[in-house]
């Protein structure tokens, strides 16, 4: 069986700078196909408690967007082979200026942006700016979308679609069933599908993997980072590497 491809989620600056590099190392050495790096926002209304708490801890240190961009640049130097997507909320891109934000994302070496609260048909020029700078703007599709809206979305022909596999927020359990698999087929179009929301076990990842380009795992990693951080950076690296192995199916299943 081929290895499961994982897009793994990290929060810039969490638990601290050193800890974040340690986490990235664990994920990459564990075989991450993509890194999704979240720039913390004060009001993450699509995120569950694990990510909320992590973001507000980072921001309480006065963490700036520019520091997050620099961290991404550093990671790209360390791991040039792993594509990085920046995930954040509309306001961080909008206040700095969509074009300057996209420019600095491109400069940091990111492959693209995931901004769930900039809908693809009201994105404040995000996609146009991304095209100009040669990076991609990833649409987040959701199971509540009407057939009409899915069609409008697939006509965009974006390189990637992020399929949020259930209603709700990050960090809750998702049960994979027929309706989810058919949703993935409906949104695919000509895009590569990144599928996730509530994926935390190797079993779930293996079930989903044949249907997507990569399985997105977010809160499960954030929770591990939180619990390993007391023991220091090495503990973070090894905890994430081990988890990654379970998710990709590269070692014995748990």
């Amino acid at each position, binding site marked *: 069986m081929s290895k499961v491809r994982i897009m793994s989620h990290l929060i810039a600056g969490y638990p601290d700078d050193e800890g974040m590099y340690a986490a990235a190392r664990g994920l990459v050495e564990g075989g991450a196909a993509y890194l999704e790096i979240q720039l913390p*926002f*004060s*009001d*993450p*209304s*699509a*995120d*569950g*408690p694990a990510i*909320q*708490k992590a973001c*507000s801890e980072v*921001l309480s240190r006065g963490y*700036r*967007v520019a520091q997050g961009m620099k961290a991404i640049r550093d990671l790209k130097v360390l791991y040039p082979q792993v594509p990085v997507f920046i995930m954040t909320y*509309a*306001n*961080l*891109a*909008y*206040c*700095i200026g969509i074009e300057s934000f996209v420019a600095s994302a491109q400069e940091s070496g990111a492959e693209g942006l995931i901004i*769930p*609260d*900039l*809908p693809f048909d*009201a994105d*404040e020029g995000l996609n146009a700016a991304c095209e100009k700078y040669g990076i991609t703007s990833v*649409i*987040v*599709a*959701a*199971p*509540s*979308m*009407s057939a009409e*809206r899915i069609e409008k979305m697939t006509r965009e022909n974006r390189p990637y679609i992020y399929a*949020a596999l*259930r*209603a*709700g*927020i990050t960090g*809750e359990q998702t049960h994979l069933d027929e309706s989810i698999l058919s949703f993935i087929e409906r949104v695919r179009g000509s895009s590569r599908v990144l599928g996730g929301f509530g994926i935390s076990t190797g079993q779930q990842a293996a079930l989903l993997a044949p249907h997507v380009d990569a399985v997105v795992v977010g809160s499960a990693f954030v929770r591990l980072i939180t619990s390993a951080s007391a023991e220091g950076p090495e503990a973070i690296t090894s905890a994430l590497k081990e988890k990654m192995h379970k998710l990709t199916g590269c070692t014995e299943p748990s």
Partner: protein
Amino acid sequence: MNVDRKGYFDRFGGRYVAEILYQPLEELERAFNEAMEDPLFIEELKRMQHQYVGRPTPLMKAENVSRLLDAEIYIKLEGYAHTGAHKINNALGQVLLAKKMGKTRVIAETGAGQHGIATAAACAHLGMPCVVYMGSTDADRQQPNVAGMELYGAQVVRVESGSKTLKDAVNEALRDWAGSFGETHYVLGSALGPAPYPDIVRTFQSIIGKETKEQTAELGFIPDTLIACVGGGSNAIGFFSSFLADDAVNMIGVEAGGRGEKSGEHAVRMSDESSRDAIIQGYKSRFLVDEDGQVLNTHSISAGLDYPGIGPQLASLGERGRITFTRASDREALDALKFFAEHEGVLFALESAHAAAVAIKLAQQKSLKGKTVINMSGRGEKDLFITSAVLRKEEWRSFLLDELKRLEETDV
């Protein structure tokens, strides 16, 4: 206004939500438009506004205050509505709409607790289960409203994230709704959020202005000046909307000046340079954010005026110069509250007292024009815990200590 793009007021408004919420917002917009065309819905709402809420709320001439200030001041006593504030107008309308939509559960956010208590009461009245999200800072300073909501059978969920105030309660309600919209309606409490909420809330609140227009006409005049406090903006837009077309009517929106000019000490978005254009909680408007776009802390003595953003229609009317924005400090609001209580026998909510404070200030400067109506959006009993702690600290302290002792000695 509302020109080419649906859901926008000039450059403000819109529907900036994660894709999951697009469909529920479309469904809501359709249902709302249908309800507004449905004579049975309108009839039912009118009946409840009269029999349950106690509408119309009175308009009174503030004779004593007018004499003392050498001005002509009227008060729209909106706080006499059931549950003590204008919030019931919107809550009742939306809960009735939720029923019509076939929803079986209602959620709401609340700041001061006034919207929460209004929604809880409306839900009890219409037989709907209700969950209210409330920042823990707000829940602590508005205990009487928490107790009230619970009496009406609502579940009050304390929100511990972020600044633990209104904006965090909105985030938490949005999170709930993103997973529950199939059976749940989210009753947003102010004229903000993603379209169609600003239109829905304005429509249900516009009864304040309609009545004011009729009541002043009965007394034989058209007001020269209207003054309302502005948190998210629902009482203000509801009060102003019937008069917007009449350019002779001067409109003043009063923001929380708090305890100082520094960032974090107030919630002034329109009357100075503190705010920026931002996209937060589903809409574009003026918000108090830092250079990166992170939401800043705010302060007001009143829990209802410390929201870091402002409804999109008010932001646009402010920029167009149709509404003049100004501020009142914590201290000025308290002084105004005392002044109207002592001289008029009317107890303003701390939020509404900000509007009263500006009426006093302008009258003293001889720049209050003609016949003025202040919207008393709420009544002040809910704030006795706050006002007592400031105005009669020692007596209040010994009362609380004694009360605690009594509580521990008896078990009822």
